[in-house]
């Protein structure tokens, strides 16, 4: 069992919902990322999802695109992200998932990246543009390295694909609750309960629901039909707002905590 699996097992035994938080690595710089990660650990974040900045983030909405741009401008590279995770691991055992576009792994060396990520203390990878159809060797290498293979399920995913995906994924299933890019929404999708039920028919894996959750009320609503919620853009937006100010870490952490409080008993 790696840290992700342990955490979800613990949440289940405690009857608690999981809280996955996404931020862009290196936004506004990697030292801030380290501090945020450590602060989040203390306010109820169960999984930290770190976006590795890419020049062409085609699955991301504007908020996360700008975060990637700030990450690139601060000199963030895949090797530096792994270095930062090593330093986080000295003080925190929060499960960490890297949200990454395939070309970055491909360029680094597929196998080498997986091995180095595991060494650095990463627990799972969510490779945005690597569907199960293209990823046979990937899953084998990930298993060997002890990393979870996080796959997405979308509202457009038909039943037979859900079955394929959940068989191939490990750790948790990430349900993208709406058609579209990442980003905040005024209203969360009303098809979440139906889709999570469909997914649950095929797997015991915990389901995390994300894309569009931006306030405590939405967090509560979504948490009712899933094992975990994922919040990204709303937090990234806070990071953008506080930027390099000295209040960055406390302000963002306060916001992160407000959502944790909404879903934790």
């Amino acid at each position, binding site marked *: 069992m790696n840290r992700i699996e342990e955490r979800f097992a613990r949440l289940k035994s405690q009857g608690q919902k999981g809280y996955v938080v996404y931020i862009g690595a290196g936004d506004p710089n990697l030292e801030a990322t380290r501090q945020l990660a450590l602060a989040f650990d203390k306010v109820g974040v169960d999984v930290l999802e770190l976006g590795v900045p*890419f*020049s*062409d*983030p*085609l*699955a*991301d*909405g504007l908020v996360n*695109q700008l975060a990637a741009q700030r990450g*690139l401008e601060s000199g963030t*590279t*895949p*090797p530096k992200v792994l270095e930062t995770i090593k330093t986080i691991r000295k003080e925190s055992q929060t499960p960490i998932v890297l949200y990454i576009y*395939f*070309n*970055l*792994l*491909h*360029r*680094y060396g597929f196998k080498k990246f997986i091995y180095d990520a595991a060494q650095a203390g990463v627990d799972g990878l969510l490779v*945005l*543009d*690597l*569907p199960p*159809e*293209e990823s046979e060797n990937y899953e084998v290498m990930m298993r060997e390295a002890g990393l979870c293979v996080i*796959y*997405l*399920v*979308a*509202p*457009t*995913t*038909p039943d037979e*694909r859900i079955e394929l*995906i959940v068989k191939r994924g490990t750790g948790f299933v990430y349900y*993208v609750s709406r*058609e*579209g*890019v990442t980003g905040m929404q005024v209203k969360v999708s009303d098809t979440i309960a139906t889709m999570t039920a469909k997914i649950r028919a095929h797997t015991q894996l915990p389901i995390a629901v994300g894309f569009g959750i931006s306030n405590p009320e939405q967090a509560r609503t979504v948490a009712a039909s899933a094992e975990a919620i994922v919040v990204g853009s709303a937090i990234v937006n806070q990071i953008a707002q506080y930027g390099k100010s000295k209040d960055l870490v406390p302000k963002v952490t306060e916001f992160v905590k407000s959502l944790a409080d909404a879903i934790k008993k």
Partner: protein
Amino acid sequence: MSAIASSTVPDAHGHFGPYGGRYVPETLMHPLQELEAEYFRCQQDPEFQKELQYYLREFVGRPTPLYYAERLTRELGGAKIYLKREDLLHTGAHKINNAMGQILLAKRMGKTRIIAETGAGQHGVATATVSAMFGVKCVIYMGEVDCERQMLNVFRMKMLGAEVVPVKAGQKTLKEAVNEAMRDWVTNIRSTHYILGTAYGAHPYPVMVRNFQRIIGDEARRQILEQEERLPDLLVACVGGGSNAIGLFYPFLDDSSVKMVGVEAGGLGIKPEQHAARFQGGSLGVLQGTRSYILQDENGQIQLTHSVSAGLDYAAVGPEHAWLRDENRVEYTYATDDKALEAFMKLARLEGIIPALESSHAIAEVIQRAPKMRKDELIIANLSGRGDKDVAQAAQKLGLEMPK
């Protein structure tokens, strides 16, 4: 050589050897599978083919002439040069062959909204045109820099009723327009068909666009056999994503005597961020849905590109070209901005044809090669588009006086 054009590539998942495939976010996976199924149904359906042939003939203006460029041939003093006149098509470039095919497909799939990316604007104009023709809403994504340098085409798209969205991200050219179109598609997947304009992207696009464009080579092959009673010795085409080139090359792949050369954009020279010649300065990577040669830095970030021609100014090349290069079936070279501009002027002055800056890259290669070939050898160059859209930019580059 006969294995090349056989059905061994792409495989069932769109792989051309180690290239191609389908690398997209999950939201697009099932829609792409549906598109693939519908496309292959249409390909086998005589009714669909009949309808497509009808519009290609009556609306698009096919077949296009294979024109003997007599003065250019004489001036260069070598091989006999033929031009495949895709520039004479309605809307002015080969792009409409594919746009027409895909709009008929979209109609059959019940899609009510069309989106597309465009670089030089020719694919945008073609897509806006077929959308107007069938009364479908159309949104075109175009980099802000390209909107400026191809302003004429922006006006044309707007007149045709399309919404043109300038894309302000990154270097504001074709790559960013594709990103934005893909974001739109993910968001509006149920109503919208994405008419991708080149032989690039996730399966089935590379094979589908190639098949809609192969009419260029099918016609050229028939025409040269009629006119010369033999096959050509050399085919030349410019390569951005690579749809006009694959369209010309594909029907000749099994003809082992026919050499082929694809011409990429050499820009200001083969130095990082100064060109768009992926086979010169690129390496294997995955971008916008497919695995191919791309221009990237040591960390896998996509590099800036440059070309005088907006249609070739793109960081990746179609996967089938990467495969044909590995198989040593097609040779890939490049022409710089300066050489392309020289060719642009030469064709205008000698033949009375103003070529697109994209196609001028192919002509530049013809100018290099023809003099070294025998007079009884034959070249076919794909004149993929006309240069009306480029006149202002070329005049400025060449320092021509414009009347105030």
